[in-house]
Every structure is written in structure tokens, then in C-alpha cells.
């Protein structure tokens, strides 16, 4: 699975099956798309408040739990003031 190779050492956004969003640097992955993220931060979305960022540190995420891995464009990301973003959390995967 060469598809994740280009993301190593890049900042990525992980979307998980339960709807959680985690940003971090992709330090490694394997065949089953298990991934290791360093300096990871969970981004908690809600309608009531701006996005809350919770530092998680070094994380290994099981491939089965992953919906999507996106490469973060740092220029765009830093330009966004997350405290002004109000949104529903992403829905969880059903079945």
C-alpha cells in the first residue's frame, strides 16, 4: 500500500470511525494502515464553542479505526482561527 508513503513526516488530519479528528505528524504506517502520529492533538468540534484542542502526544492508531487521512496545508491551517469555528462533530461511521 504505497498510498500513505507521501504523507510520512507531514502534518496530517486523521478522521476516525467514531467521528473524532486528530492532527499530528505521521511518523510511520504499515500494510494494514495502522499509523503512528507524533505531537498529535485532538480537535473537538461543537456548535456551542469554538474548536477545543486537546494535546495527545505520541499515538498509535489502529488501521481499522481510520476513515480518512488528509495532508494538512499548514499555510491554510495556521490562517484559520479555530476558536471561531463552530460545527457539529463529524458523524460516526454506521455499520
Amino acid at each position, binding site marked *: 500500500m*504505497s498510498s500513505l508513503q507521501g504523507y510520512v513526516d507531514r502534518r496530517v488530519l486523521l478522521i476516525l470511525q467514531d467521528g473524532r479528528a486528530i492532527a499530528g505528524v505521521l511518523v510511520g504506517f504499515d500494510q494494514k494502515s495502522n499509523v503512528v502520529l507524533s505531537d498529535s492533538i485532538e480537535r473537538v468540534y461543537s456548535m456551542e464553542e469554538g474548536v477545543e484542542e486537546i494535546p495527545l502526544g505520541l499515538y498509535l492508531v489502529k488501521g481499522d479505526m481510520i*476513515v*480518512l487521512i488528509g495532508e494538512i*496545508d499548514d499555510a*491554510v491551517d495556521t490562517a484559520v482561527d479555530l476558536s471561531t469555528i463552530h460545527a457539529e462533530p*463529524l458523524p460516526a*461511521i454506521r455499520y
Partner: protein
Amino acid sequence: MLIFSVFKTLTDQQVTVELKNDLSITGVLKSVDQFLNIRLDAIKVLDETRHPHMMAVKNCFIRGSVVRYVQLPAEHVDTQLLEDATRREAANQGKR
């Protein structure tokens, strides 16, 4: 294997992937593997105001297992070829 081949022929075409969490992502198909994991470039999330989570994401890897549908560009799909290939694969399966 057949479906994998179809996706390979659609590399560099625009597709819309609908996920099982109801998120729809349009983008250019860059690659696909045997699990039907998908790499998309120049992505756009449908209804971005409701889903600002991916604002800073320009390309992504989607796990095949969370895909519900992929909308394909009909003009780049040879349906006759597909049906022939499907019959051939079904015949081979029977022999095994």
C-alpha cells in the same frame, strides 16, 4: 481484482466518494490499491459550511472499508468492456 482494475483506469479523473459517515468528497483520483483504499487530490467536501473539519486538507487517503459509493465519470467507463470482463471473471471463478 476486476473492480480494482476499473478504478486504475479512472486515475486522474474526477470522482465523488461518499463515505458511510455521510461525508461526500469530490477530488481527482490519484491512486487505488487492492483494498480499494483511495487517494484523492484537489479535494472538496460537499456542504463545507457544515463540515469545516477538512478546510486545510488538500489531498487525502480514504480507507476502502468506509466507502459507501463512488460516483464515476460515465464518459470514461466503457460499459460493454466491463460486462465482458465481468463475465470472464465469473467464468474463471467457476473453474476454481
